[in-house]
C-alpha cells in the first residue's frame, strides 16, 4: 500500500524548514482533510522539529491479569521491542487510543530511542519524566504529562508496524510524519517529495508576502498575490531574495 523507501535528504530538509500549517493546506488541496493529529503537542517546542518515516506500535486497553508489572521483566515485551526495532531515522508512533491517563514511555526509553538514532517519538497517550525529556533535545510529541506506568491502561501489541490511528489520523507504516512547534502532520509517502517541494515554494512566497504586509501592504492584491505582485515576487527571487 505505502512505499516504504528512505526519505531523500532534500525532502527531509524541505520539511524541516517548513511548517505543519503549510503542509495541512497542501494536503487539503489534494483532498486529504484529516492529517493533523488532534490533542498531540511537543513536550519542548524548542526541540519539536523532525521529518521521518513512521514505525508504529499499537496499544489496546490493559487487562489486570495480563498486564502486571512482571511483564516488563521480558526484554521482548512489545514496547521494549519497538524501541529496539525502530530503524534509525524513523519516528516511533504509538497508538494509545487518545487515552492520556498513563505514560506510553519515559526517560530511559527515550534516551535509548535517541541513542539508536530515531527521529522522534509521537503518541496520542501520556508521557512520564517529561522534565528530563524536555532537556534531552529529542523531539517528543504526546497528548500530555502522565506519570503512571503504561501498564495501568495500555497493552502493547506484538504485531509491530501495522496501520494505526494516532490523534484521530490514520498512520500507515512508512508515512512521513512532520513535527514542528504546533504538532504533527501525516504525509502519505507516495506524495511526500512533491508536497515538500511545493511547501518550500509556498513558504518562500509567504515570506515575501509577509514582508510586504509588514511594510503596510493591504491584503487585497497581495494575499493571495495578483499578477503584479507575482511578477514582483519573481524578480525578488531572481535577485537572490534580498532582506530589504
Amino acid at each position: 500500500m505505502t512505499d516504504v523507501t528512505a526519505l531523500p535528504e532534500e525532502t527531509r530538509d524541505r520539511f524541516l524548514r517548513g511548517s505543519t500549517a503549510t503542509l495541512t493546506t497542501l494536503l487539503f488541496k489534494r483532498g486529504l482533510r484529516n492529517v493533523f493529529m488532534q490533542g498531540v503537542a511537543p513536550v519542548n517546542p524548542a526541540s519539536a522539529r523532525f521529518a521521518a518515516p513512521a514505525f508504529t506500535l499499537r496499544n489496546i486497553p490493559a487487562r489486570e491479569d495480563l498486564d502486571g508489572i512482571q511483564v516488563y521483566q521480558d526484554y521482548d515485551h512489545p514496547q521494549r521491542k519497538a524501541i529496539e526495532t525502530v530503524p534509525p531515522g524513523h519516528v516511533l508512533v504509538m497508538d494509545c487510543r487518545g487515552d492520556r491517563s498513563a505514560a506510553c514511555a519515559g526517560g530511559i526509553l527515550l534516551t535509548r530511542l535517541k541513542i539508536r538514532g530515531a527521529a522522534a517519538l509521537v503518541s496520542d497517550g501520556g508521557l512520564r519524566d517529561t522534565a528530563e525529556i524536555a532537556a534531552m533535545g529529542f523531539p517528543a510529541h504526546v497528548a500530555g504529562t502522565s506519570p503512571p506506568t503504561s501498564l495501568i491502561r495500555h497493552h502493547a501489541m506484538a504485531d509491530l508496524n501495522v496501520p494505526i490511528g494516532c490523534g484521530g489520523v490514520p498512520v500507515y507504516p512508512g508515512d512521513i510524519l512532520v513535527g514542528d512547534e504546533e504538532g504533527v502532520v501525516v504525509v502519505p509517502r507516495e506524495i511526500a517529495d512533491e508536497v515538500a517541494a511545493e511547501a518550500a515554494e509556498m513558504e518562500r512566497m509567504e515570506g515575501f508576502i509577509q514582508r510586504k504586509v509588514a511594510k503596510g501592504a493591504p491584503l487585497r492584491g497581495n494575499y493571495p498575490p495578483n499578477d503584479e505582485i507575482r511578477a514582483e515576487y519573481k524578480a525578488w527571487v531572481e535577485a537572490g531574495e534580498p532582506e530589504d
Partner: protein
Amino acid sequence: MAEITVTPFSDATRDRLLAVSTATLTSQLFKRGLRRTFMTGLAPIRADCARFAGPAFTLRFVPAREDIDTFELLNADDYPQRAAIDAMPEGHVMVMDCRGEMECGAAGDIFVRRLQVRGAAALVVDGAMRDTPEIAGMDFPVHCKGAAAPFVILSHHAVPDFNQVVACGGVAVYPGDILVGDGEGVVVVPSHLAEEVAEAAWEQERMERFIQLKVSAGATLVGTYPPSEAVLAEYRAWVEAGEPATLSR
C-alpha cells in the same frame, strides 16, 4: 508475548450466562481482579432484544484517509468487513473496534441480516450504526453507541488482519473472549474464566432472589444482606426445598 489460549465454550456455560445480568458478571469479575470489563458508552438498539453470550470475533478500524477509503475499496469483494463476516464461525459475536468514533455508521441493515443468517450471536460496535430503524425490527442483538447515517468509509478503514486483539468501549477484547449482553450493555469475560464466573454469577443471583424474598417479607438488611450464617443455612434449606416462590415462616 504469551499467547492467549482460548477455552472452549460449552452450551451449559452459555445457558448460565444468558440467565444472569451483566451487573452480576461485573461483580464476579471484580472479585477476580478484573475491573475494566464493561464496555463504556454502548447500549442495545433494542432493550428487549439485547441478550446474547458468545465468543468474540473481531474487526479493527483505523481512521479513514480520503485517497484510500473510496467507493472502489468499499465495493471490492475482499473488502475486510465483508471477508470478516464470512470467515466468522457460527455462534460468535462480531466485535468492531471503531475507536469510539460516531460520525458514520459502522454497518447497516444488510450487513446485520447477513450476520443473522450466518448464525452470529450478536454485533457489538463502539461506534454508531446506520439503518437502525430497520435493524430494530430484526430480532438480532446489536449493541452500539448510537445512530449515524453516513456510510462506514467516511471515517473508518477496516484493517485486513481481522480477528486480532482489539479495544471496544475501553475494554480489551481478545479473540475468543466470551461477550455477554443484556439490556444494560456488554461485559467481556476472559474465556478461561467463563465457566467459573457463569456458575458463581448464577449462584449469586439465586441467593439474591432469596434475599429479595426475605426483604419483601420484612427482614432487616442487617443480618440478611449480606447474609449471616443463620440466613445462609435458611438459604440452603430453601434451595433444597426447590426454591419455593414464597417463604414459609
